[in-house]
């Protein structure tokens, strides 16, 4: 892999909730344009980390820079350059597809002709043009998730954070979801994704495996399998997770 531009840099990130240490001294770098996976069991600290990076949570300590901006003092600048999709569906159920897109586009500062063009573009990319006036609540879950993803991308961010984006959807929808991820990555967007599906780890350029708030391994899937002498990421993960106190 050729030398790439660093887009996220984290040094000694610590996040405590009272006594509980959710993120214990995380240090890693993410390069521009790669798909960076965060793997771990529930409660391993993935969501905490992704929420800190996207500016939803204050870190306890550590040096963090996202898209070239400081995570303490330049949070709004970070937010203008990233997209975020939460594991909990968070579009407005009582608004239509088009109204949701329009609203978030407006919040990100798009307006007038540009906004209109972007809405049409998104709708046709999603093949949802004919459903644009349907309420979100009437859509199947897979569609909702793809829509959430597109809306997180509405302002063409440099980095997109996806927190367990494929939770609860069927394998076919998951497959098409990953196609969307690859296509934005090919256009140069950095993708930061958390998941607990080990097969999805194979789709990532590099993965980090988190156990009990710590980073246990960080490398490309192929290298990880080699290092741990395993056939699949699943095996790698099971080996590492055995060390967990909570498992």
């Amino acid at each position: 892999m050729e030398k790439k531009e660093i887009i996220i840099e984290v040094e000694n990130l610590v996040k405590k909730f009272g006594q509980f240490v959710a993120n214990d001294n995380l240090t890693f770098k993410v390069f521009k344009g790669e798909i960076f996976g965060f793997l771990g069991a529930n409660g391993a600290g993935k969501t905490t980390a992704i929420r800190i990076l996207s500016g939803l949570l204050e870190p306890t300590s550590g040096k963090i820079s996202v898209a070239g901006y400081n995570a303490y003092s330049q949070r709004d600048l970070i937010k203008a350059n990233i997209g975020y999709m939460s594991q909990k569906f968070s579009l407005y159920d009582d608004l239509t597809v088009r109204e949701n897109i329009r609203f978030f586009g407006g919040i990100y500062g798009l307006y007038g002709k540009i906004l209109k063009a972007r809405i049409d573009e998104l709708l046709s990319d999603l093949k949802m043009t004919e459903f644009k006036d349907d309420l979100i609540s009437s859509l199947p879950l897979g569609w909702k998730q793809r829509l959430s993803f597109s809306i997180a991308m509405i302002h063409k961010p440099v980095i997109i954070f996806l927190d367990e984006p494929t939770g609860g959807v069927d394998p076919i929808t998951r497959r098409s979801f990953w196609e969307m991820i690859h296509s934005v990555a090919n256009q140069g967007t950095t993708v930061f994704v958390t998941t607990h599906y080990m097969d999805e780890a194979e789709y990532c350029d590099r993965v980090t495996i988190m156990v009990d708030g710590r980073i246990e391994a960080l490398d490309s899937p192929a290298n990880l399998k080699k290092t741990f002498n395993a056939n699949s990421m699943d095996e790698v993960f099971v080996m590492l997770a055995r060390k967990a106190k909570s498992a």
Partner: protein
Amino acid sequence: MRAILFIIQKEFLQIFRNKTMLPIIFLLPIIQLLILANAATFEMKNINISVVDYDNSRISREVISHFDASTFFTIIPTEQSVEKALELVHSNRTDLVMVIPNGFEKDIDNSIAPKVQLLVNSINGMGASLAYAYSSSILMNFTKNIAIKKLNVNIQTPPTISTQTSYWYNPELKYSHFMVPGILVILVTIIGMFLTALNLVREKELGTIEQINVTPIKRYQFIIGKLVPFWIIAMFELAFGLLVGKLLFDIPINGSLTLLFSFAGVFLVLALGGGLLLSSISSSQQQVMFVAFFFMIVFVLMSGIFTSTESMPNWAQIFNRINPLYYFMKVIRMVLVKGANLSDIRESFISVSILAVTMLSFAIFRYKKTS
């Protein structure tokens, strides 16, 4: 700034799409106004009286007929026994028992002050004192006239002071002129404040607020975008309520409506800002509602909706300086009924403006995009 407009537009879409909330927002308050303004009255219209007449003379019957003729009293027949009449009080069928003892007529003939006993159900202290006042004035007038007629002497009249009382602004002492603006204040505040407070915390509960928090929107833009839609609804509600009040209760509108609405505008920033502050420090709708409800009850009761604030104890008057409803209650009545102008309500206007600015800044400050 454009982001604010997008939030406002979104809120309106959501409000008008919710078919259950629409009638609650626009219809329920008006129905309430209609019913409650009629219910809230202290005017005594009817006092039930039972008379136990032991004298059973011409004069005693004449006394009773005076009560019968009065519009205040309805005579409830009773057996000739005090115990039986008291039974009627027990079972709430009569409010007042008048006992005319034996020798009533004889006393009058002999120019001795005749005796009458009144037994008043005084669970409602205020009603009881009114019932007593009305009945004793009938009795006094009756015996005075008899005495004057009987004596037919022109005794040296003592000097008197004649008082002429006039009731300004509301010469017929219509209670609805007092209550309709008061109830309107409560309804507008409830609708505006609760809708705002619940709206923000609902987004928290449903998780949609995350998607907004991750955008570069400024805190003040978000708070103002949330406030404006409900501000407009509350202002509309006030206008609608005033119209209903004017058409159905004929409430006076003597002052400038521009002045009233300017004041209401500032007041609503305060009330709605309070709602937003509350919701940004709460985690569930249940919590918000409960706290809001508590403050609402305290503020309403202290605001002088039923009673004069000047007669309240000192600590209550000091408290009222930070009670938004106290100011609005006072100003709406002053402007509508008395035609007060800006200089009459200047102090209230300044106080509410200061409170509003403080509250709004606090709401913006307390709203955190990170947790």
